[in-house]
């Protein structure tokens, strides 16, 4: 960027301390830049690239908080660089930008986030019920606004993976990555569980394959979500309740065996949901009792009840 575009606001200089390096190691380097009114961290990074470090690696796309590409740790806090205004950071102090710590570093501020794309492949896909005669005639499914809003909250997710970055189950324990889906994908499963049309039952899968029990609801993921999705309260806690119901309730289990049902019946929902969770959790209002189609999760729902070895970790949730 040429000089004439730089219009210092309050004047003065800012020091950006940026991590430079790759998987073999690296260090922080300081770049002193003129301050410009109204800028976000990503603007300053771009000016550093254009004037001082053309090879400084940084991933970004929309620069408007809609694509979730420019995730990093700004002064230690997982944030989007495009939505962090410079004037919200302590004035006069060095601004430190580091790559997300939970993922392997590719170069400078760019990390290898392929773990997330691998987890996404393991989520059983959307599986809708058949259309009714009325719906075939109307040309599409009928759903009420109030019923789609629960899943719509999770569909606002821009996949910045900041929730994955901050989650201590994988941030501090690389070994957990093979058995833990992480907050982003708990929200995805919650979205499908609460989708008015989806008929898959993901509860046992969540416990056995995706490590739902490892989450001890510290709410770090909710705190860093740039879309303000209540991941813990609205996704993870309801999922934990549903998964626990699936495990403990012998009548429900027997019912599924006999009737080949997937999601809970209205009676099951009424008997278990309101009393078992915090007040913030909404009761289950979906219509259930739809026959399970042949598929991966239907088979899992028919399997014998699993052992309960990791249930202690569930304790805070129920």
């Amino acid at each position, binding site marked *: 960027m040429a000089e004439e575009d730089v219009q210092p606001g309050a004047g003065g200089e800012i020091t950006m301390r940026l991590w430079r390096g790759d998987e073999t190691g690296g260090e922080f380097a300081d770049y002193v830049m003129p301050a410009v009114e109204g800028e976000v961290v990503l603007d300053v990074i771009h000016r550093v690239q*254009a004037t001082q470090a053309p090879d400084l690696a940084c991933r970004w796309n929309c620069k408007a*908080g809609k694509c979730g590409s420019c995730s990093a740790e700004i002064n230690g806090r997982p944030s989007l660089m495009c939505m962090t205004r410079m004037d919200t950071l302590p004035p006069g102090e060095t601004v430190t930008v580091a790559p997300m710590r939970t993922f392997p570093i590719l170069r400078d501020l760019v990390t290898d986030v392929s773990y997330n794309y691998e987890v996404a492949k393991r989520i059983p896909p*959307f599986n809708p019920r058949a259309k009714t005669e009325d719906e075939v005639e109307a040309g599409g499914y009928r759903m009420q606004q109030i019923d789609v809003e629960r899943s719509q909250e999770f569909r606002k997710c821009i996949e910045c993976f900041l929730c994955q970055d901050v989650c201590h189950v994988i941030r501090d324990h690389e070994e957990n990555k093979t058995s833990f889906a992480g907050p982003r994908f708990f929200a995805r499963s919650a979205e499908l569980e609460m989708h008015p049309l989806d008929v898959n039952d993901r509860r046992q899968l969540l416990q056995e394959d995706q490590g739902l029990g490892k989450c001890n609801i510290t709410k770090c993921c909710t705190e860093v979500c740039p879309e303000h999705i209540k991941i813990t309260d609205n996704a993870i806690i309801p999922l934990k309740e549903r998964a626990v119901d699936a495990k403990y309730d012998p009548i429900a289990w027997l019912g599924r065996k006999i009737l080949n049902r997937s999601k809970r019946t209205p009676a099951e929902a009424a008997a278990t949901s309101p009393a078992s969770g915090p007040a913030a959790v909404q009761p289950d209002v979906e219509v259930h009792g739809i026959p399970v189609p042949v598929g991966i999760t239907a088979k899992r729902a028919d399997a014998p009840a699993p052992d309960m070895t990791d249930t202690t970790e569930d304790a805070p949730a129920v």
Partner: protein
Amino acid sequence: MAEYETHDFDVIIIGAGGAGLRAAIEARSMGLRTALVCKSLLGKAHTVMAEGGVAAALRNVYDEDSWQVHFRDTMRGGKMLNNWRMAQLHAQESPDRVRELEDWGALFDRTEDGLILQRDFGGHRYARLAHIGDLTGLELIRTLQQKAVADGIEVFMELKVLRLLHDADGTVSGLVGYWRPSGEFVVFTAKAVVMATGGVGKSWTYTSNSWESTGDGHAMSLWAGADLIDMECVQFHPTGMVWPLSVRGILVTEGVRGDGGVLRNSDGNRFMFDYIPPMFAAETADSEEEGDKWYDDHSAGRRPPELLPRDEVARSINSEVKAGRGSPHGGVFLDIASRRSAEDIRRRLPSMYHQFKELAGVDITAEAMEVGPTCHYIMGGVRVDADSTATTAAGLFAAGEVAGGMHGANRLGGNSLSDLLVFGRRAGVGAAEFASARTGTVSVDQGQVDAAISAAVEPFERENGENPYEIQHDLQSTMQSLVGIIRTGSELDEAIGKLDELEERAGRISLSGGRKYNPGWNLATDLPSMLTVSRCTTLGAINRKESRGGHTRDDFPKPVEEMGKVNFVQRTPNRENADGVGGTPSIGTITATPEPILVMPDDLKALFEEAK
């Protein structure tokens, strides 16, 4: 000879936005070995930025709507320069493409009887845009992404494509590119290639487009021998943010106006009433009172002029600012705060609320936004056959923004998401059928591969050369000031001179660092595309001596009937070139030739007679 890995598929799709994903899903469903390559991570493509909705005559809100009305709106919005067959297929097929998304998990906002809700947008006669608040593009890309993953489509991310490769007979046979994370080179062979790379907006200073929109697909198709049309037709969206400077150009959805927002100048007047063109006078309200009634009931009044097509609104804003009636930072005011409740605004426009609050410190439920035109979309692109999306280069197909013709001289809001669904699917079918019918082995010419690779690494071997960021900056300033929203002959000639200089400078770039995730290098390899498409736009603009849609000439301020009957077709001599010359073809050889537009059949022409 450079080292590189190789992959082989039946169909390769370049670009993983809506069009590319939809094409991949279709080709895969037909049983072909299908791969998707994209320059960023999956799910980050520019489709994610689409806000207001996807246009389709679903008739969930207004039963009077039909494909014929949608077709007519699209053609009139495009100032009749559109490929009529594309506009027809688009209007006929978009409802099924939208409903299909719901079968794949999309959750649109609902009507009271539980169907997909539709909102009003500029140039659409009826409320027609299926939407999810102002996050429609995100919903669309996530739905298609999740479907593609579920279908097992192979996705190769963060891969920059440098050139298409072709057989001895000129048929497209694959591509050469590099992995951005490692900087290593890669060659794909394929029986058919679909170009779905999106737009060109990054060549302007103020744009709603991301860094990816460098016109790679336009340029690579041209170099591979395909025709481009209508490259002068660039859409400046009327409402981009103007302040702070660092966010200037970021999109403010037309949904703000569709949901009741109005434009005011510094005197507080709704100035759009002063700019109603004769073509739309009969259907546009001539008083604020009449326009306001229309929002609740379209039969109670005519539509307010804030909802004229985008080209009209953008020019009007430009005129108000020039006349000294602009806002403090050189835009005008977009006011929804005084017209809708705070709760309504937050519910219907959550992303706008968030964007202004966090980036500009403006609460749009309490104060007006400052907005102005921003480079948003290119109507022109690769010339295609409407039914198959085949380009004029054998084996190459194109869909979405990179394809030209569908939108004529100006695109209506909401018609882009429907375009990429309708023609993304058709490109998948077209490419799959071509691949299935293709006989013989698909071969790669080593000379083409080596030439592309050596051109790409050359800047690392040079010292004290040009800085790619400075060239990009100068290109953006050139296009913004000389080939912007209002154009004139002398400035366009000046732009050609500047482009010559920039092309020469781009040949002298030097780079530091390695090839591994090096954004300076990435930019250096994007610049040939940016320079090529900028020249195409400028050449088209020089030739089109009239004002039509997104193309406005100060020296030819009115439409010229004869000009409305031709497309300016751009091609290079490389068209006949099968000799394996690689690198970046000299872009000084591009020609622009007027060729007649397709003639609309009488039954469709009759639709326009009825409307009069």
